[in-house]
């Protein structure tokens, strides 16, 4: 918790205490949650909903989330859309290229578990968690923009507890 120090070591001034104390993790996590840049990885229908979430009505820009094309510049990878066997190795490569700390949001039924194509399709990967570790699952076909923003807020709760030298929380969050 970042709180101003109430006694003693504050500088004098008209607006009150001007020195705040926090741990390095809290400070960096504050920066990360308010400026979470996502990798614009859109394959199929959920990609259009991701785009519409980024546009004027459900703006992600006011939450600090910008779409980035390069995995090196991204914090979170939102896998939106169906992943096929041909595409799967590329998903893994992109995830490996992201710099730590990195998180993954699996958006839509197809990325969660194969979606409507899981039963009869020979070419669809039934869920990206076969290849990369997922932090948040957002169900829907496609999920509403509000559901996706709910997922990013849940992820931000996890990011606030992230510790650079601690043990990472790997339990997945499922949005209802």
């Amino acid at each position, binding site marked *: 918790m970042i709180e101003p120090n109430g006694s003693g070591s504050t500088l004098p001034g008209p607006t009150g205490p001007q020195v705040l104390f926090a741990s390095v993790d809290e400070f960096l996590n504050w920066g990360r949650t308010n400026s979470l840049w996502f990798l614009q990885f859109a394959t199929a229908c959920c990609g259009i909903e991701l785009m519409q979430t980024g546009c004027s009505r459900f703006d992600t820009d006011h939450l600090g989330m910008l779409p980035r094309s390069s995995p090196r510049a991204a914090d979170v990878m939102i896998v939106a859309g169906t992943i096929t*066997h*041909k595409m*799967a*190795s590329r998903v893994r490569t992109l995830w490996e290229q992201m710099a730590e700390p990195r998180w993954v949001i699996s958006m839509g039924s197809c990325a969660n*578990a*194969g979606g409507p194509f*899981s*039963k*009869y399709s*020979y*070419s669809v*990967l*039934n*869920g990206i968690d*076969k*290849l990369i570790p997922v932090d948040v699952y957002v169900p829907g076909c496609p999920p509403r923009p509000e559901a996706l923003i709910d997922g990013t807020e849940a992820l931000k709760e996890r990011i606030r507890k992230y510790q650079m030298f601690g043990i990472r929380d790997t339990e997945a969050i499922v949005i209802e």
Partner: protein
Amino acid sequence: MKNDELFGLLQVLYPDVSSTVAETGEIQWQVPTGIFLEVARTLKDDPRFAFDSLMCLSGLDLSKYPTAVKGEFVGELLACVYHLHSFEHGHEVCVSVTVPKDETASIPSVEPIWLVAGYFEREILDLYGIAFPGNHDPRRLMMPEDWIGHPLRKDYQYPSNYSTWELKREGQNFTSGPYA
């Protein structure tokens, strides 16, 4: 011109072609593989036909298609169905070529005649296994290069894994379907 008039004109030039009518009223012209390339060229170049547009080229696996006799199927055959359209005259026609379903299944490529056929034929090569000698780029189109088998055939067995992962997901308890 009507379909039977056009067919009459074609049969004068190539007596081996035949015509079948299905229950839905669809008239298919059956052309043997040997003369198919000349027939296609005539259909494009002859001004009475002038079929300058190949609307659709689909593959078909006839091995489970029922005949008039109950319980009997057509046989181990693959077919390619060409839907042609003429911008000049406005008529449309459906041409079908049948080949046996084994390693020698091949139909001459019509890519030199209708350029759009390149991608259609690559897709049929990938998903049905019919070879098209004459196609400028005979590679798989949809499936990965190291995929084994031709998925749209009726007797296709789904593999249990690809690369390092399994196709089915644990926890998915299907009681029917290919993974059951």
